[in-house]
């Protein structure tokens, strides 16, 4: 089954690649979800104009390919920064020159839109009576959100969020198109240097299978820890 002599030579680079992939995934899921909460919430309860902006944002991001968003940020936005000489001397210039922040930013924006859309439905699905009961107990609006509304909403959509996390993981290879060496990018290096086409790709696919399996198990564990709406 193919030739694998190259594997030991690139083992360490693959470990680094896995780390980059996990890093991007972690950043995207964490910050993306933090943004998704207000994006979902304002569509259910906020002022109408804010809800419209959030809905427009979700439509825009969900309606365009992530690859285009990534290139728009990296090549498009990145090409503008050199026109501002003040930026060159500022402390953020080293950050703006790296590809990683652009990828992280693009993935965060994408996760925020997809999960924001999910969270809108999740917030809307929590029975009104529960929120009214909490208000009647004298909880403030923020306390209701923190103690009742958000936990109940997440509980309803945890399986959907798990699916979204797997989709995000699978979109990380796009980052390799802007010179980031995630697992897929490392596979590309191997392909170029050894002229083996299939083995590196199969190996990358195998690593992804493993990471996906871990992610699925992790979310299942999380789902078991949260009392499910059906069992309660």
């Amino acid at each position, binding site marked *: 089954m193919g030739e694998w002599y190259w594997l030991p030579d690139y083992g360490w680079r693959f470990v680094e690649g896995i780390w980059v992939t996990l890093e991007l995934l972690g950043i995207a899921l964490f910050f993306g979800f933090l943004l998704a909460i207000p994006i979902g919430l304002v569509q259910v309860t906020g002022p109408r104009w804010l809800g419209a902006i959030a809905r427009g944002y979700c*439509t*825009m991001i*969900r*309606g*365009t*390919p*992530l*690859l*285009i*968003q990534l*290139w*728009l940020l990296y*090549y*498009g*936005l*990145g*090409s*503008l920064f050199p026109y501002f000489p003040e930026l060159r001397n500022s402390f953020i210039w080293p950050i703006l020159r790296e590809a990683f922040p652009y990828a992280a930013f693009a993935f965060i924006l994408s996760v925020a839109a997809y999960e924001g859309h999910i969270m809108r439905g999740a917030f809307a699905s929590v029975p009104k009576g529960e929120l009214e009961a909490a208000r009647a107990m004298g909880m403030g609006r923020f306390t209701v959100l923190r103690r009742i509304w958000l936990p109940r909403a997440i509980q309803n959509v945890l399986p959907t969020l798990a699916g979204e996390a*797997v989709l995000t*993981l*699978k*979109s*990380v*290879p*796009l980052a390799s*198109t802007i010179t980031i060496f995630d697992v*897929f990018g490392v*596979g590309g290096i191997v392909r170029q240097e050894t002229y083996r*086409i*299939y083995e590196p*790709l*199969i190996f*990358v*696919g195998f690593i*992804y*299978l493993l990471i*996906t*399996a871990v992610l699925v198990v992790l979310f299942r564990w999380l789902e078991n820890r949260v009392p499910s709406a059906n069992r309660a």
Partner: protein
Amino acid sequence: MTFFANIYELISEWGPNLMGGLAASLQIAVGGYILGLLIGVSGALGKIYGGPVLKWSLEIYTTLIRAVPELVLILLLYFAGTQLLSQAFMAMGYGRVDISGLAAGIAVLGFVQGAYSTEVMRGAILAIPKGEVEAGASFGMGSFKIFHRIMIPAMLPLALPGLANLWLIITKDTALLAVVGYEELALVTRQAAGATRYYLEAYIVAGAIYLAVTLVSNQLFKLAENRVTRGRKSLASGGA
């Protein structure tokens, strides 16, 4: 504002190329979608009614495809598929054949979509009340007629939201073919950006085109949904 002037210049210079790219993207999306649907229907029927070997191979197919990134699959299938096919033709003595990028793109995206389609279809078929199928059989309908006259109308309202979603996914996934060098919208945009140096403007224009495709598709699917859910309004309002 120079921004709009740049966009105007970009469109007047590269408009036809961008539209050509869009046409290529849509061709692949439509072809891949139809292929995916065919795989999906047969895969779902196989998963439900097939023997253990068929069931297991379909299970492996859907699980593997859905766990591995599209980009990996596209590279793998695009390279491996075209190479294997031309080797097969060589072995059969037909000589060298070049597989067109269009055919390869459709095959790859269709094969990937087939896995997702299979799951959508399976859910919808399983939701068909058994009695309806049995009633058809008792009227003397053959299995094809039952499928065509009873199963499809019964499952479409359930499958349509999932199918709409798959269509939106495949239109966006065509952009991945830019990575293997197929000249669809994303790659043409990249060329336009490089040639004009209006990077930001080019990607914004491309984004707007993709968004327009999504919005138009949404409307069309809404029409289709209204049509297949005639007389089932409760279901229609319950969907997305």
